[in-house]
């Protein structure tokens, strides 16, 4: 009995498939039901980063890593293929924004319009404070 176990163990440890799985498992990423494998850790990290920074447009409060939607699955595949074709993370994000707009990015680009939108509550607050101070001074 022990002899068979030893034989089995030896066969498993020397099998290529087992070795490949063990050696390369840090380089595979499971996103929901899909498994993506990469040839470098850098690429795998880039893939993860892009997925976390891009919004799913169907389930709009989820990112592409968490979403179950078919569109998210398609976009993951497109991103994966572009990374395999050696496109940079910035280029891939730029492509997605060029097709879907700023909304797809969780980190929007800082254009003049975005600056105005972001700062408007603060500007309004300052204006109101100034008016308030002006009124107090008058008294």
């Amino acid at each position, binding site marked *: 009995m022990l002899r068979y176990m030893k034989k089995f163990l030896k066969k498993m440890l020397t099998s290529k498939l087992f070795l490949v799985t063990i050696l390369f498992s840090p380089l595979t990423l499971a996103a929901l039901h899909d498994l993506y494998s990469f040839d470098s850790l850098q690429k795998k990290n880039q893939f993860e980063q892009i997925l976390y920074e891009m919004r799913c447009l*169907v389930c709009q409060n989820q990112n592409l890593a968490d979403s179950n939607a078919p569109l998210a699955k398609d976009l993951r595949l497109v991103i994966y293929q572009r990374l395999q074709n050696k496109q940079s993370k910035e280029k891939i994000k730029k492509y997605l924004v060029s097709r879907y707009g700023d909304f797809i990015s969780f980190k929007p680009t800082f254009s003049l319009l975005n600056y105005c939108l972001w700062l408007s509550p603060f500007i309004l607050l300052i204006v109101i404070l100034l008016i308030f101070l002006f009124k107090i001074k008058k008294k």
Partner: protein
Amino acid sequence: MRYIIPLLVLLIIVFFLWQGLVKDSNLLPSPLINHAIPEFSARDLLKNHSILKKKIFLHHWTLLIVWSSWCLTCTEEQPFLLKLRKTPLISIYGLNYRDELNQAKLWLKKQDNPFQKIIFDPRGLLAIDLGVYGVPESYLIDPQGIIRYKYVGTLTSSVWLHNMAPIIKQAK
């Protein structure tokens, strides 16, 4: 007189809050307006051996309808599209999105076919290149292959008359 400034500030705030309520944040404005249709190569849904490319959009106005057999609201557009087919103004093309070939053909048989050409996009890759994120969606494309308008949702004669037809008229 002293009430005018606070009133103005209030009106401005109310305007922005009202806009926040009225605008549907699920509807994304397309960044591809006034940009050219991207190059592509895809099968014709009905003509097995025919490959469709960007040039099918040139030299005439096109209404590109993104549809699927599994999309329930796409059937609501059909009566309008079948009526529109009679206009010489525009060609109606379909982009069959993430669908199965036989299901799509069956749907066309049941619902009637308003499309002069249908692009088969089973993996949704051309759709991504166009910024499609749901069905149904429609694109108005000019004779130079430039996207002039995009509508997300069921296309009605009202949207056609108020948003799309004026663009065509203006260009003439």
